[in-house]
């Protein structure tokens, strides 16, 4: 009974959660929203923090999404749901501006706020490098000119490039091709070095794509080690490996000068002064973009921009410079400051100094969440009353002689409660789903044709605008009277709809209550009715998993189709070369076989195999020991202790794998005479295996523990030892559960990203050697999604294709696994 009641309560709770969620959506926004580049993130957050502390505004929320993802969000539309500002580590592209304009985001203000030096550094314990761009190119390019011909880069050691350089292996850790830092490095350093070869420079005019392919392609044979966007990790890895060089932003060198030294480029030191003066050759500009339409609507945008462009912030002695931002030259600062002030002029004069949001006109008010909550609460209370009434009536019908009733009195209570609550709840859900669509249709129908035809970006943008006006996020007078009228209409319809909902729900609830109440009698098969409802609720909840799958497929499908417009399916599925770096330029897409996913799937398989060969034996033996040998007290302590492993953030495992385990393996390999890469599948796999131990150990322990004691007793009685009993009797009996646990562990291993990014790198090698660097499908998905490249480029879309293919592959694996389990499943008692 307790559980029946619990189930009912949970149902109500879900309704309330849904209502709170929906209600929250309707509220206007008070804080500035910023999205974009992870390189700009440290600077933008610093300004946001200071801004929140020193002004009356709320602290802006700054997301780190990567430039491409940030611009996509920013350009999605006008209104509270979209960011006000986007941070970018590169300039916005024309195609992105066009996409922006299509969604009604036409006017944006560009503000360039400083430079980021890109340094090449190594540990202080090693000799300092003095490189020329030409040497850098020779060390890092995929193909280099030799005797008038382009050959695959033959250089393995620095000395081979120039006898003056140290005799160490070329090992450079740097950002992946999805990173703006990488793009800038390629453009400034690689191309700079490339241009010093007359035969390549001649190509520039003759055959530009070929020229770019030579100059912009970085080698993929292990000398250049792609790391994630975590520069701190590179800093720490350099400390552990004095032979390696690292490429990252100046601010990280600035913070770690006691451990690292920046290499001289052409004799120039990467110092604050040299980068600012433009003498140091490798640097890039940082930007942010402001959505003009939001100025004056979301409070504080103009003030934020003014604070950002203040001398105390971005000047040579401002607080950003202290953290490694290279300021713009004075005249550029002045120009940008002027742009910032022009932005402030966009702010309607009516706004106060503190920037109160415009108050919607009287009568224009959206339905608030609390009124929805009230309806839900009334429904819950009515159901509870129904339960009490039904119970009492059933008891009264037989004058307290419970034995005469068909079902228990509680069942009659539930019967009435269900009659009371369920129809109302259904109406409620239906309303939540349908109401917005109906109102939108009505509002659109009421609009003059001309407005719909003229609107930029189509009906969706128009509706978004109307809703924003209705919520008071955009003053209607700033748009057009017709839209303002539409917004008013929208709110009126919303109110009418809500009144309709309240009336319907109340009528249904009281009607249901009366009907249920009337039906009660000793002969009513209340239990059967109630159970039928509950059983359909059970079945309904299992449908949710199908819905999730459908949702996942749908959310991946469209982008995947777009991807396969750009890259052929066979190339993707069977190509042996994964190298998204060449695909950034349209003229090369598909020509170099750069999107072959085989190495990624092979890498996933390799790392998963390593992980499972750690997790399965350790986990299974732990489970056996805990459930069969250990004293109960010990087991009670061990099991939850191991479960902690499942919850430690994977960043922590990743750091551990990269900074502790990988160097141990490398050193051990050197002793044994093996060449272990500093990023190896082995380190990532082993640590991942340790992380998923609890999946195997705890779940297996439960099923082993649930094997009936009689089986053990029978086996002992026949003279079997404990281990024989376990191997011959208990494990076969527990097999389905153990297989389930192992499958779950495999799933977890396939889905893991952080450990692999940090410890195994991003280089897609097609190899079965666990001592080399590999990468996995999920790592690539994450890296591609948060990259700085344009969101609609093949590079980003590849993430969706990878996700979908992975989904289909694991689906096949699961079909096989189910067959296997069916075959070996045994039921004992």
């Amino acid at each position: 009974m307790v559980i029946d009641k619990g189930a009912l309560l949970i149902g109500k709770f879900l309704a309330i959660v849904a209502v709170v969620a929906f209600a929250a959506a309707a509220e206007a926004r008070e804080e500035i929203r910023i999205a974009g580049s992870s390189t700009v993130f440290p600077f933008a957050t610093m300004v946001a923090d200071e801004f929140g502390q020193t002004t009356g505004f709320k602290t802006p929320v700054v997301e780190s999404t990567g430039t491409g993802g940030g611009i996509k969000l920013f350009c999605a539309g006008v209104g509270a749901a979209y960011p006000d500002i986007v941070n970018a580590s590169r300039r916005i592209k024309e195609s992105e501006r066009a996409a922006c304009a299509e969604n009604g985001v036409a006017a944006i203000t560009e503000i360039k706020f400083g430079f980021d030096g890109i340094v090449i550094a190594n540990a202080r314990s090693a000799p300092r490098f003095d490189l020329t761009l030409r040497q850098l190119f020779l060390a890092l390019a995929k193909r280099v000119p030799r005797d008038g011909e382009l050959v695959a880069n033959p250089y393995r050691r620095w000395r081979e490039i120039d006898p003056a350089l140290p005799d160490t292996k070329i090992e450079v850790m740097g950002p992946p091709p999805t990173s703006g830092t990488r793009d800038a490095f390629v453009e400034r350093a690689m191309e700079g070095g490339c241009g010093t070869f007359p035969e390549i420079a001649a190509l520039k005019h003759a055959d530009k794509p070929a020229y770019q392919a030579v100059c912009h392609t970085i080698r993929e044979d292990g000398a250049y080690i792609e790391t994630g966007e975590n520069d701190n990790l590179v800093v720490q890895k350099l400390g552990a490996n004095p032979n390696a060089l690292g490429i990252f932003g100046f601010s990280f060198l600035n913070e770690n000068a006691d451990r690292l030294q920046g290499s001289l480029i052409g004799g120039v030191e990467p110092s604050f002064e040299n980068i600012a003066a433009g003498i140091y050759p490798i640097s890039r500009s940082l930007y942010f973009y402001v959505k003009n339409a939001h100025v004056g609507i979301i409070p504080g945008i103009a003030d934020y921009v003014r604070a950002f462009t203040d001398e105390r912030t971005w000047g040579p002695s401002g607080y950003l410079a202290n953290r490694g931002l290279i300021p713009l030259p004075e005249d550029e600062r002045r120009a940008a400051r002027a742009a910032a002030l022009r932005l402030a002029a966009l702010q309607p004069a009516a706004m106060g100094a503190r920037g109160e949001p415009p108050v919607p006109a009287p009568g224009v008010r959206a339905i608030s969440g609390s009124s929805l909550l009230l309806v839900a609460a009334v429904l819950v209370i009515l159901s509870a009353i129904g339960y009490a009434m039904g119970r009492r009536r059933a008891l009264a019908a037989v004058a307290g002689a419970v034995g005469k009733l068909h079902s228990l009195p509680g069942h009659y209570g539930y019967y009435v409660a269900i009659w009371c609550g369920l129809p109302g709840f259904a109406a409620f859900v239906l309303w939540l789903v349908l109401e917005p669509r109906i109102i939108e249709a009505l509002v659109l129908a009421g609009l003059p044709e001309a407005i719909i035809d003229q609107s930029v970006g189509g009906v969706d943008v128009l509706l978004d605008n109307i809703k924003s006006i209705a919520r008071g996020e955009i003053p209607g007078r700033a748009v057009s009277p017709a839209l303002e009228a539409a917004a008013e209409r929208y709110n009126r319809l919303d109110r009418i709809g809500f009144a309709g909902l309240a009336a319907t729900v109340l009528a249904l609830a009281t009607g249901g209550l009366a009907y249920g109440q009337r039906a009660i009698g000793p002969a009513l098969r209340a239990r059967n009715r109630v159970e039928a409802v509950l059983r359909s609720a059970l079945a309904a909840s299992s449908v949710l998993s199908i819905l999730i799958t459908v949702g996942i497929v749908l959310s991946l499908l469209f982008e995947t189709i777009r991807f396969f417009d750009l890259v052929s399916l066979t190339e993707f599925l069977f190509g042996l070369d994964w190298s998204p770096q060449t695909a950034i330029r349209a003229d090369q897409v598909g020509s170099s076989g750069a999107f072959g996913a085989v190495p990624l799937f092979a890498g996933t398989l390799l790392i998963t195999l390593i992980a499972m060969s750690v997790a399965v034996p350790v986990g299974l033996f732990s489970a056996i020991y805990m459930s069969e040998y250990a004293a109960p007290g010990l087991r009670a302590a061990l099991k939850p202790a191991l479960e902690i492993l499942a919850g430690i953030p994977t960043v922590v495992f990743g750091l551990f794998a990269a900074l502790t385990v990988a160097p141990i393996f490398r050193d051990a390999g050197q002793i044994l005479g093996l060449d272990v890469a500093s990023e190896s599948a082995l380190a990532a796999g082993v640590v991942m295996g340790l992380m998923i131990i609890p999946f195997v150990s705890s779940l297996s322990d439960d099923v082993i523990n649930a094997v009936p004691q009689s089986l053990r007793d029978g086996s002992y009685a026949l003279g079997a030892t404990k281990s024989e009993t376990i191997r011959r009797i208990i494990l076969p009996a527990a097999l389905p559960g153990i297989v389930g646990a192992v499958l779950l562990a495999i799933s977890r291993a396939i889905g893991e990203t952080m450990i692999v990014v940090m410890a195994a790198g991003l280089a897609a090698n097609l190899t079965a050697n666990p001592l080399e660097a590999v990468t996995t499908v999920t790592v690539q998905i994450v890296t591609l999604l948060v990259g700085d490249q344009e969101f609609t480029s093949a590079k980003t879309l590849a993430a969706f294709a990878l996700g979908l293919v992975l989904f289909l592959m694991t689906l096949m694996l699961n079909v096989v696994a189910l067959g296997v389990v069916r075959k070996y499943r045994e039921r004992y008692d």
Partner: protein
Amino acid sequence: MTEFAESRGHVGTNDGAARRARRHAAERRFRLYGILAIVVAVSFLVLLLGSIAVQGYTAFTATQIRLDVTFEPEVIDPEGTGDPELWAGADYGALIRHSLGARFPGVREPEEVRALMALISSGARFDLRDMVLDDPGLIGTTRSVWLPAAADIDMLVKGITPRDVPEDARRVKDNQIAWLDALVAEGAVKRALHLRFFTAGDSRTPERAGIWGAIVGSFYTMMVTLALAFPIGVLTAVYLEEFAPKNRWTDLVEININNLAAVPSIVFGLLGLAVFLNVYHLPRSAPVVGGMTLALMTLPTIIIATRSALAAVPPSLREAALAIGASPLQVVMHHTLPAAMPGVLTGTIIGMARALGETAPLLMIGMVAFIADIPGGPSDPATVLPVQVFLWAGSPERAFAEKTAAATLVLLVFLIAMNGLAVYLRKKFEKRW
């Protein structure tokens, strides 16, 4: 045993003894494997936790510097209005500058003054502001105040960044060290418990950054996840294991659920973005959306664990209940499910633990963000503990390294508390058949 061996004529007594010895050796080996496995797992856990603790414990204290601060009325309220609104906007940095200037009268050059100011946290002015706003009576008085030191100084005092490298390789310069040493000599520098770490929201100034915002965010997120994933997961599992007809549809659902467990977590983020944000226009960066997204991710784990726990309940139990007239639903709710509860809880704990430590899906729905304000409810912008760990781990400032480890420790405390609850519940339900 001896008789048994002898009775099988061709096997001699000696053979029997040898075989017994072999079997017992196998038994001992088997047991040893078990112990080894436990030792490997536990020692890894201890190593990991130990390394985090060693890195992180320093974040629980912070360096403070004592200054005699005069709350000059001409700085706080230059026009003498007496209006607290205006006091909030005053230049409290000037108070610190004057105080330091009085202590080190030789420092005049602007460059030097800036270096001297850099000893004290750039956020100390807000502390002074809050003091004045709390107690306007301070204006005009001189007080001895312990102010937080800047993070660079803090790192130096804690010995995390070295003093013995060339000056250009240090963020703290020679003159700053000299001033600091002078202050230390007069007892004006101390390391005190850093309560702010537990009570403040995020900040980009390391010495002002705290974990409370992330704790609150994690709490809301986990509540939503649990409220959705646990009931739906258990109900689905009960249906599939106990009621569903065994046909192709159920096979499909089963395979589908196993498959969902293998979907990379960021894909759930994409789904959350597409459904909750783009279709239903729920707020970005809100714990309620994060919780719903993580619930989708956690569901398969709970369903799979619950199913295998239900399958492991002996059929005799069900038959007995059916025999005395319980309906199928009553059998499940009153007998099978309670008997399977330990396994259900294990699955829930593992799933929730994973959800608690997850960052990737939250990226897509805007929770990987700098959010300084403490969330007031499940629909306010918020971040969660693992995201805080992730963001701090990526910050250039050295002082965030210890904060990263300390935040992980806090996350572990959460995790252990959650596990503790599960252990208690598991104990309550556990039986051996």
